[in-house]
């Protein structure tokens, strides 16, 4: 069963949800052009929330604890490039990134700009 993490805004009395699940897929369609039929196991993070630019979030896939939140190269909450120590650390850091967004190339990760999560409505 997936976990639904509730993000509550006291200022606006709103709640946003981030869903985290661990899944196994037999086939993966890559870039709409090829199929990888290796069975893969990975974490999948999704949300219907939008950012303050009113843009949606793409599905985020974490296959390894070295898949860091900022472009797979840096953790979102600190300028650290080493793998997460635990599943808990990984989830909390990704949730941090959802909530706070990040500047262009934050921590020299090469990541593109993403606005913070919109909680006003």
């Amino acid at each position, binding site marked *: *069963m*997936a*976990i*639904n*993490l509730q993000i509550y805004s006291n200022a606006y009395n709103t709640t946003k949800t981030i*869903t*985290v*699940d*661990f*899944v*196994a*897929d*037999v*086939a993966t369609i890559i870039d709409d052009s090829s199929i990888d*039929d*290796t*069975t*893969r*196991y*990975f*974490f*999948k993070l*999704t949300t*219907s929330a939008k950012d303050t630019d009113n843009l949606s979030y793409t*599905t985020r896939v974490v*296959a*390894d*604890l070295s898949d860091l939140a900022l472009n797979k190269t840096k953790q979102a909450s600190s300028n650290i490039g080493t793998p*997460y*120590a*635990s*599943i*808990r650390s990984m*989830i909390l850091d990704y949730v941090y990134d959802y909530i706070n967004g990040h500047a262009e190339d934050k921590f020299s990760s090469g990541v593109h700009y993403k606005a913070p999560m919109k909680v006003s409505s």
Partner: protein
Amino acid sequence: MASINIYDQGTNNTYKVSFELKSTILNNGLSPTPTDFYLDVSTTMKKTDGSSFGHYVVQSLTDTAPGIVGAANDFSDLCKQYITYFINEAQLIESSSSSSTSSSSSSSTSSSSSSIDSSSSSESSESVGNTSSSSSS
């Protein structure tokens, strides 16, 4: 939740290995921690004495299956280690070796039914030794 079907053609039995993501306050005998996120690994396979396997808690890639030395390369590697461990301990294959699940020929497996925007669980099948895979969705 990732749920894997293991079909044993010899006995016509199908077993499940499940990897369920959980969020609870985990007290494993050490100091109580805040809410933790971890994988709960379990199976419907039985040991040779008829007893059940326990639940295994995976908090990081170092929480590998019994008998595995060192951390797993990634979550796919870790899950396959657990599947292999259960199959070997349940002695579902005739050989006593601990070869990997991909050592024998197998028929094609089915595709997953999970969709991107939903949180539904997904299932897939693996074949081992003298067993064969079964389609499931």
